[in-house]
């Protein structure tokens, strides 16, 4: 392969960065994709090598210092064997009774035999990312790395090392009524790393509901770097719910890049309960006018969990409406970070953007951090943000107890109500019910 000489001699500072460079050098020739993809990988790795792992002085990573939190880089997960596949069968149990179309990725590799590829609705096409990358006329050739521009180092690392994932295409005007579920599961018994990349293209006037779940074993310090690129065509409707229930010691870094055309409707909700370190970054580009965008999030954290949500919404066209509504419930010594940036370009008159993040601290050692950022270049816009941090209302708790409801149950009721505002905004009823139950399970599992 005639790739340009790799720039591996740049001084790298941390052990993790050095290990990543070694990994890239070792596997680059065997990663999927033709010469164009290889060139993309090299450029991306250069971007990563220049920046290194994000640290405190990188503004958008201010509260999640990966240099400190990711001491080493784990070896790439091997292809899933029969044992790994067998373990993956039970994954995605939160939604397993809802009859969604399950597409299963085990240790970073798409596994067709665990996936439901039968009777695809008209207009729905599904492929593995590894296969699609190898096709010079495939969707990735047109879209990958071209949805939203970003120089984020974690995303660059994903582009350099992306192995597999899922490519979903919905043809113009096709309404896929059965939700598609991407199940990402790590089954490894030793710490491994997986770099998955997916691409979803919902053409003009089409409709898709997507669930994405990420899970893995407790007690193993595995690393997940996952990215999803999304293109939503004019007048299309897209809803996604991403559930992160990774194992207790996992580092989970997720990037979503979404480009949305005129009159389309976009919705994304994060639901996070698992993982030692979780980063969800969403870069949303409202390219066409009159887009309706909804972003929600629920983090339920305990122990020393650290979750960081970074949103960047770019209103580039007139009359867009964006709503952000986030709730964090923090137990133990957990930390939740919410960074929300709303940019309104000069052309984006009549933008209506609102952002609200609320944190509920259940202990004195839990912490929440809010960083709203507005960058407005148009004059006829409505932009608002609010953030609150509070504790449970003791008066209300007493009222519930005075009716015979035990303390823990009273707290559970109030916390469910607190996150219910976000869950209730999800379109699919089955998902709402499943997440409400997951919330309840989390609450009842509290010490």
């Amino acid at each position, binding site marked *: 392969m005639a790739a340009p000489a790799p720039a591996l001699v740049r001084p790298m500072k941390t052990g993790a960065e050095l290990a990543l460079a070694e990994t890239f050098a070792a596997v680059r020739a065997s990663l999927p994709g033709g010469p164009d993809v290889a060139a993309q990988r090299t450029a991306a790795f250069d971007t990563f090598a220049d920046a290194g792992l994000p640290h405190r002085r990188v503004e958008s990573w201010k509260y999640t210092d990966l240099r400190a939190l990711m001491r080493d880089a784990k070896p790439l997960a091997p292809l899933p064997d029969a044992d790994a596949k067998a373990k993956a069968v039970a994954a995605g149990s939160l939604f397993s009774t809802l009859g969604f179309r399950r597409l299963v990725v085990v240790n970073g590799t798409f596994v067709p035999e665990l996936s439901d590829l039968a009777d695809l609705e008209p207009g729905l096409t599904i492929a593995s990312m590894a296969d699609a990358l190898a096709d010079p006329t495939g969707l990735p050739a047109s879209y990958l790395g071209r949805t939203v521009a970003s120089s984020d180092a974690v995303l660059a690392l994903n582009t350099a090392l992306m192995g597999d994932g899922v490519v979903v295409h919905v043809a113009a005007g096709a309404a896929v009524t059965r939700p598609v579920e991407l199940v990402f599961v790590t089954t490894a018994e030793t710490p491994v790393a997986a770099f998955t990349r997916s691409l979803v293209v919902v053409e003009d006037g089409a409709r898709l509901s997507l669930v994405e779940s990420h899970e893995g074993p407790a007690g193993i310090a595995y690393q997940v770097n996952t990215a999803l690129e999304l293109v939503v065509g004019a007048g299309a409707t897209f809803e996604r719910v991403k559930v992160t229930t990774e194992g207790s010691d996992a580092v989970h870094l997720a990037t979503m890049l979404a480009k949305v055309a005129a009159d389309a409707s976009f919705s994304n909700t994060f639901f996070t309960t698992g993982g030692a370190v979780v980063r969800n970054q969403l870069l949303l580009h409202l390219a066409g006018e009159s887009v309706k965008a909804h972003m929600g999030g629920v983090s339920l954290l305990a122990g020393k969990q650290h979750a960081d949500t970074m949103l960047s919404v770019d209103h580039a066209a007139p009359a867009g409406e964006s709503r952000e509504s986030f709730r964090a419930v923090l137990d133990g010594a957990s930390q939740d970070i919410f960074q929300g940036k709303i940019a309104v370009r000069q052309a984006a008159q009549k933008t209506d953007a609102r952002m609200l993040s609320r944190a509920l601290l259940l202990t004195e050692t839990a912490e929440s951090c809010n960083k709203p950022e507005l960058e407005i270049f148009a004059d006829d816009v409505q932009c608002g943000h609010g953030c609150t941090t509070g504790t449970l209302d*003791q*008066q*209300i708790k*007493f*009222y*519930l*107890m*005075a*009716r*015979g*409801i*035990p*303390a823990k*149950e*009273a707290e559970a*009721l*109030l916390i*469910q*109500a*607190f996150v*219910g*505002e976000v869950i209730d905004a999800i379109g699919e009823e089955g998902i709402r019910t499943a997440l409400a139950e997951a919330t309840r399970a989390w609450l009842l599992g509290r010490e």
Partner: protein
Amino acid sequence: MAPLLEIKDLHAEIAGGRKIINGMNLTINPGEVHAIMGPNGAGKSTLSYVLSGKPGYEITGGEVIFRGVNLLDLSPDERAAHGLFLCFQYPLEIPGVSNMAFLHTAVNSQRKKRGEVELTSPELVRKVRELGKTLGIDADMLKRPVNVGFSGGEKKRNETLQMMLLEPYFCVLDEADSGLDIDALKVVSNGVNALRSPERSMLVITHYQRLLDYIVPDVVHVFNAGRIVHTGGKELALELEATGYAQYQSEAA
């Protein structure tokens, strides 16, 4: 006959602060309705909170025996399951928790604690709807979050609904009449009277004789500076209406 409730030389203060309940004694037998009247700030609401176990008060002396147990040893939810009900002077609003879900959780938490069979959703909904009808509470109010956006009168009806549903042995009604128009006063009083039975007792805190026309007490107490300073029959309420509390202020001092 054993008393239903015995308050013996009860002393309580606001945690780290003022003494509010000051050597209170009261015995209530099963089936009796007692009224407590007294000036603002006398400690009537505080008494109701101390009885129901609200945090923030320190019991510095005495005991409260309720149906054979020392009430003060129990948590608020255990007191409720043991048969105590406090009808709040200012019912709280609970955003995001539907009235029906709240009632369901309350009923079944109590049943569970007492080792009784829990009600199914349809059983509960039927029961709540029936009671709601007698109190003028419609299906919409049952779906809405607890007390959120309810008028003062609606909140009091909602309290009465909870009381009727939970069927406690002992009800403390703290100014159940405040904020009620005349019709609502009748509705709430009818609900309370429907609950009167030989096993069930009530403590009715009020400023106004009018409520006692509807909920006729067996005994009336004058409460001042944290204790009962005078006790009489139901005619005492009428006398107080005419004379006020001046003569009892000195008695308390």
